[in-house]
């Protein structure tokens, strides 16, 4: 089973390199960077929106990028049910674009925070988490200044009820504890999905965790999930 990944690159993105490497070296899958001025994504099976500072994160992270020409194709891709993963700044772009619920605010500490954290898998209903075990804990790096997930109480309840919380910050053994929430996210949320489940956004960086030499390879568990999900779809068809 082979899938072609796209890495959507905006001016100011800086995680595209890692995303390309993770897919190419970590998964051995074909992958291509797609510059924001392009308008078609027909040739791809999965999209990654990488981290970085699109448009300098000026105004609000992701605010300007969401209007980039490629975004119409991203919306179409998402609507067709194919898998889309927004990482860090990519997550911010997707919330700004309304493809994911909620918003990402300045870290509670007001500081940029670079660290390795643990996240607990809260749902396996998305193509990006399908092969994971419920509650599986992953070790991933974070590196962001605006990662505090926010949803108003009503929305938060809805997200929980509809199983749209994908990852929560946790201890190594999977306990929730406020001391390991690195940015003050509401309900320790590290990642969410849309109601269909095919669009996922998360603050940690799976694309920087594809090799034990650089600290771990848990990121591949996420990035490779769509391969299995894709296989199921292919065999089901």
């Amino acid at each position, binding site marked *: 089973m082979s899938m072609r990944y796209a890495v959507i690159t905006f001016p100011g993105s800086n*995680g595209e390199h890692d995303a390309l490497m993770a897919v190419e070296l970590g998964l051995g899958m074909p992958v291509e960077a797609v510059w924001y001025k392009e308008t078609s994504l027909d040739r791809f099976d999965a999209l990654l929106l990488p981290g970085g500072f699109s448009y300098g994160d000026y105004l609000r992270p992701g605010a300007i990028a969401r209007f980039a020409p490629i975004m119409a194709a991203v919306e179409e891709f998402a609507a067709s049910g194919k898998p889309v993963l927004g990482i860090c700044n990519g997550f911010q772009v997707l919330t700004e674009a309304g493809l994911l619920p909620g918003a990402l605010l300045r870290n509670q500490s007001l500081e940029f925070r670079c660290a390795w954290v643990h996240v607990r898998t809260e749902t396996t209903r998305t193509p990006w988490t399908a092969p994971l075990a419920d509650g599986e804990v992953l070790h991933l790096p974070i*590196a962001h200044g605006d990662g505090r997930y926010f949803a108003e109480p009503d929305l938060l309840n809805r997200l929980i009820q509809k199983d749209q919380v994908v990852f929560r910050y946790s201890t190594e053994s999977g306990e929730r504890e406020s001391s390991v929430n690195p940015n003050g996210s509401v309900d320790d949320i590290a990642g969410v999905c849309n109601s269909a489940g095919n669009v996922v956004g998360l603050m940690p960086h799976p694309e920087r965790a594809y090799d034990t030499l650089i600290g771990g390879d848990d990121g591949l568990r996420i990035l490779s999930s769509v391969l299995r999900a894709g296989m199921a779809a292919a065999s089901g068809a």
Partner: protein
Amino acid sequence: MQVTAEVLAEVALTESEYALIVEKLGREPTPVELGMFGAMWSEHCGYKNSRPILKRFPTTGEHVLQGPGENAGAVDIGDGLAAVFKIESHNHPSAVEPYQGAATGVGGIVRDIFTMGARPTALLNSLRFGPLTEPRTRYLFSGVVGGIGGYGNCLGIPTVSGDIFFHSSYAGNPLVNAMCVGIARQDQLTTAEASGVGNLVVLVGADTGRDGIQGATFASVVNPEASHRGVIQVGNPFLEKLLIEACLELLQTPHVVAMQDLGAAGLTSSAVECASRGTVGIEIDVDKVSRREKGMTPYEVMLSESQERMLVVVRPEGLESVQQIFEYYDLHSDVIGHVTDDGNVRITSGEEVVANVPARLYTDECPVYTREGVEKKAVQTLRAFEMSAIPDVSAQDSAGVLLKLLKSPNIGSRESVTRTYDHTILSNTVVAPIKADAAVIRVKGTGSGLAVKTDCNPRYCYLEPFSGGAHAVAEAARNISCVGAQPLAITNCLNFGNPEDPGVYYQMQQAVDGMSAACNALGIPVISGNVSLYNESGDTAIFPTPTVGIVGRLDNVDRHASMGFQGGGAAILVGPGEASLGASEYLEEVHGKTAGAPPEIDLELEVKVQRAVRQLIADGLINVAHDTSEGGLAIALAESCIQGRAGLESDLGELLAVNNQRLDQTLFGEAASRIIIEVSRERESAVLDRLHESGIPIWRLGATGGERFRVTGILDVTVDELAASWSAALTSYREDPETSQPVPGRG
């Protein structure tokens, strides 16, 4: 034109320098020419006080691909690749506006690296501040750290290493030195030599504003706040990221003849240097330069230090493809001139010629001052301080002293700083900041790795500059060896006070000689660097600070070491047993004395110790190593305990014996050429045999493991206690309402 003292002060030229300009030109300079001379003949661009001293550095060696003279130096790292690196100061701008000063310092050094055709791959920062107890220091510190992170994080270049030191001599004049390491294919290394008459000069990037006019001049005078009149430069890392991608792509095409960043002295220095390196002329029409503001004069355009701009010399037939690449990245570019054959830098404003001077007058003919250095009596007196006047620490107090030192700003954890720097991006970071003496990054696709670090102990340099210079190089190299890498070359930033002061000039000469001696002994050439003088406030000069930035190579990046004890092995001290309290952190922190001579350094032994440890790591026999530096043996051991969350059960009887039974000297005395290693039980005898053979002194300190750091009969503390003190060093003032203070404008 009326050349008054005021006009000369504006451009920081002396009357005799002005007379020299008139003589060389055979006429009076125009105002634009005078401004350009002021910038080019400043210390920052012209090195007029430091050139003769810099000549003393060894600059060649088997790995050197590019020595000093280009935008950055380059060394061979195998596989057809080069490591390209340089360090640069942004001290004066950071004293005025710490966030933007530091941010634009990072932006500047990164441009130096990709100008060479290298992809910027790692950033380092070497910082010096006054005491954290002062509100102004805390303002500068948080601003500078914020600026470094803000810029580097946005560019997506990991900031992986550095060093920080606090001392009152920096209170009014902090030091912000930024280093960048890039990786290039050797066959794609580029230079900044303009050539080819008729080739086009293209300016790309930000529009030009009145930013930092005369910044280079302003970096070359005492008291920057009073003399700085230009507009503070505000960096735009977003734009720089686009420039990096566009320029690296451009260099893949055959259209580019030369590339030069605009740094200090803006368009002036980049045009002059491009022309002078290529021994050609350049003509520029300032009217073609896109402006951010209305009404700018040719003088202002030529001397603006607006950030995020690059000068590219392009073959005319390639212009269209070059412009397409810029457009792809949304970059604005202007053709502002062309290469000529007369060797002159001719500046026009439309039809009018506003400056026309041979390029070499700005560069080669810059006056050089060789001065007389004389050591200050006061320093001699301090150095002669008798240690016997200091009472030894009692066994009972030793734990308290250890915890106090661990919590001191020069020793304690830098984690509160490094966690604000993205150090995992680019997925190369094998050994992260704090975890070891140097950071290790892998070189993708090769199996090899690079180790990087900056270093300098300014107290040593103050008390004995020759020794301090040698220590700076040796310690930097030792840090590299501690992770298992072979040091390849260094870059350096010479931060000193006013060179016209004989005491300061003496420091410079001696420090450079000391550095050179260590470079020669260790076989490490100097391939690039930067000079920052006039670092004074009031009439106090900073401690002499010849910062060393070093790059080493690991053949096999899997075989590396870090500092945390793993437990279940033996801790061994490799190197001399005798330490010295002279110039130590202990003497300053505990007894309030900056005194004594720095420890002696036996460069031959240094070479042997480093080689032996490197070899043990390369052969896979050990993977824990840590050198002893500020705070001495006890601090180094405590750090290894903290990092590995493992204790140590040790006996220091033998070491006490060689330290006159002085406990303070044994625990907290400092010495060169010392590395602590941890070796597993199975490998202990093999490792000891090897070390014995090499004739290096070794000392078995004890067994690692457990939850306590214990020295028989002397001290006993839990690793948790050690960690708690160490972790609080740079943040404890925040909890104290007396000393915590907010940062203006950054609420």
